C-alpha cells in the first residue's frame, strides 16, 4: 500500500523510494531487452518460414516467376563479387588515410577538418551515396548502369569512413614505446610504420574492415540508385556485367503478392543473407579474439 503514498513523509521515505527504485530498475531492464527480444522473435519467425524453401535448389537456381523453382545463385554470387571488389578498394585507401592521420598529420586546422569531414561522411544517408554513384561513376566515368564496378565503387565510398575510423583506432592502440624503440635503432618513419606500426595494428584493421564489409553486403538503396537490375539470371563474368545482389533480390521478391514468395522464397533469401552476414562477422570476431590473447 506504500506505492501511492509518495507524498506522505510519515510512511518513511526509505521504503517508498525503494519501491520506486526497484520498479525503475525493472523498467530499465525491460527497455534494454525489448529490442533484442523483438528481433529474436522476428528472426525465429523468418527461420521457421524458410524451412522447406531454403534448399540446395534455391541456392543454385536462377530467379524464376514460379516460387517453387526460384533461386538465389546470381544474387549470392553478385553480392560476393561486389564485396571482394569493395575490399580491394577500401582496404588500401582506408589504411592509407588512417596512417596519414595518425602518424604523419599534425594537429592543425587541415587535420581537424579532415577528421570532422570523415565523421560527417559516416552519417550521410546511403541513398545519397547512391546518387553520387549515379552522377559520378555511371554518369561522368560512364562505367555503366548497375555494373559490378559501379556498384563496388559506390558502396566502397559509403563504407570508407567506417574503415578509416576503425583503422585509426587500431593504429592509435599501438604503444608509442615501440615506435620510439624503432627510431632508436635508426629506422626511418616509413620503416617504422611498415615494420612496427602496421604489423601490430593489422588484426584491429582487419577486424574493422571485415565488419564494414558486413555493412556493405546489406546495402540496398545505393544499388537501386545506380540502377542495378533487381533480377539477374546469369552470373557476373566481368567487371562490366550487370549485377544483382542479395538485398536487391529480396527487395524485388518482397513486392510479389503471392504468399509463396512473401512467406517462403523471401524468407529463404533473408536467412541466406543473414547467414552470410553472420559468417563475415564471425570471421572478424575470430581474428580479434585470436590476436587479443597473444598480446
Amino acid at each position, binding site marked *: 500500500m506504500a506505492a501511492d503514498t509518495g507524498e506522505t513523509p510519515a510512511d518513511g521515505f526509505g521504503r517508498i523510494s*525503494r519501491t520506486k527504485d526497484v520498479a525503475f530498475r525493472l523498467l530499465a531492464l525491460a527497455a*534494454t531487452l525489448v*529490442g533484442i527480444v523483438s528481433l529474436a522473435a522476428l528472426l525465429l519467425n523468418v527461420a521457421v518460414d524458410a524451412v522447406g524453401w531454403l534448399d540446395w535448389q534455391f541456392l543454385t537456381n536462377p530467379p524464376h516467376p514460379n516460387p517453387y523453382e526460384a533461386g538465389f545463385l546470381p544474387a549470392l554470387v553478385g553480392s560476393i563479387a561486389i564485396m571482394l571488389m569493395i575490399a580491394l578498394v577500401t582496404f588500401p585507401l582506408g589504411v592509407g588515410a588512417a596512417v596519414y592521420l595518425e602518424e604523419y598529420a599534425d594537429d592543425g586546422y587541415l587535420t581537424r577538418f579532415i577528421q570532422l569531414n570523415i565523421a560527417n561522411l559516416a552519417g550521410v544517408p546511403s541513398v545519397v551515396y547512391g546518387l553520387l554513384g549515379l552522377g559520378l561513376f555511371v554518369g561522368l566515368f560512364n562505367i555503366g548502369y548497375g555494373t559490378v564496378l559501379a556498384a563496388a565503387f559506390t558502396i566502397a565510398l559509403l563504407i*570508407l569512413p567506417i574503415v578509416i575510423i576503425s583503422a585509426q583506432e587500431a593504429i592509435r592502440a599501438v604503444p608509442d614505446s615501440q615506435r620510439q624503440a624503432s627510431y632508436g635503432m635508426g629506422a626511418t618513419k*616509413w620503416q617504422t610504420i611498415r615494420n612496427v606500426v602496421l604489423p601490430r595494428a593489422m588484426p584491429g584493421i582487419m577486424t574493422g574492415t571485415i565488419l564494414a564489409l558486413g555493412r556493405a553486403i546489406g546495402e540496398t538503396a545505393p544499388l537501386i540508385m545506380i540502377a542495378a537490375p533487381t533480377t539477374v539470371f546469369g552470373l557476373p563474368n566481368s567487371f562490366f556485367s550487370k549485377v544483382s545482389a542479395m538485398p536487391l533480390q529480396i527487395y524485388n521478391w518482397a513486392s510479389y503478392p503471392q504468399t509463396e514468395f512473401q512467406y517462403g522464397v523471401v524468407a529463404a533469401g533473408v536467412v541466406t543473407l543473414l547467414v552470410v552476414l553472420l559468417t563475415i562477422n564471425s570471421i572478424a570476431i575470430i581474428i580479434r579474439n585470436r590476436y587479443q590473447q597473444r598480446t
Partner: protein
Amino acid sequence: MSQPDFSHDGIRTARGTAFRYLFMLCALLSILTTVAIILTLLLDAIDFFAQIPLVDFLTGTRWSPTNEPIAFGVLPLISGTLVITIGSAMVALPIGLLTAIYLSEYASDRQRAYLKPALEVLAGVPTVVYGYFALVYVTPAIDTILPVDLSTFNALSASIMVGIMIIPMVSSISEDAMSAVPDSLRQASYGLGATKFTVSTSVVVPAALSGIFSSFILALSRAIGETMIVAIAAGQTPRMIDLTDPAGMFLDSIQPMTSAMVQIGTGDIVGQGPAYKSLFAVGLTLFVITFVMNLISELVASRYREVYR
C-alpha cells in the same frame, strides 16, 4: 609525432616523402568525396530548378512526378519523413535512454558484456530485412492484436522497425556520456541518502544531458535517411499530414523523401526530364537536413567531452 629523421640516405628519404604524400592523398580523398557529393547533387538539382521554380518545390503541397497533373511539391514527402521520424523517436528515444541508464548505472560488468554486443546486432541487421519484417510480420501482428483498421502499407510498422534499428545509436552514445560523469557526483548524492533511482534521474542524466541530446539528434538523422524500411513497408502515397487526425497519420500509407527517391530510381524514368532530375533535388534536401543534424550532434558532443576532461 614529429621525429627527426637521422637517415642521410637520399633514396630512403625520397621514398619516405613519397609515401607521406601517397597517404595524404588517401586522407584527402574523403574531402574529395564530400565535394563530389555536393557537386553531383547541386549540378543536377540546378538543372531541375531551371524547369521547376525553387519556390514551387519548397512550398508545393502535391507530389506527382509522373502522373498528370505533374507536380513537384516536396512538402508531402517532408511530412512523410516527419511522420516516420516522430514515430521512430517515440520508440527509440525512451527505450534507448532507459537502456543507457540500465547499462551505465545498474548492469554488472558481466551483464554489460552480453547486452552491449546484443544491442549492436540491432543496428547490424540489413535494413531491407527490417523492411520485410515490417511488411510480413509486424503489420499483420498489429492488425490482429489492436482493434484498428491498418493498411497493408502503413507508417506505424515502418516507424516501429526504424525505431528498433536506431535504439543502439541512442543507447551507446548516451551510455558513453553517462559513464563520463565523474563518480564523485554519484557518491555525493548517495551520501545524502539518495537511492539509485534518484541518482540516475536527478544527477547522472542531467549531467550527461548534452551527450544524450547529441545521441538523439544523430539517431533522428539516421531515421530521416533510412530508406529500405520505408520503401518496403510505408507505401507510396505522398500526402500532407493531418495533425487533427494523428491515428490516420500512422495507420495509412505515406511516402517519405527516401521512399520517393527509390520509387523514381526503380521506375523506367530515364533521360533528362524533370522527373529524373527531381531525384537530385530531393536528394539535396535530404543531404542538407541530415548534414546539418550531424553537424549539430558533433558540436554538442564535443562540448560535453570538454566539460569532464
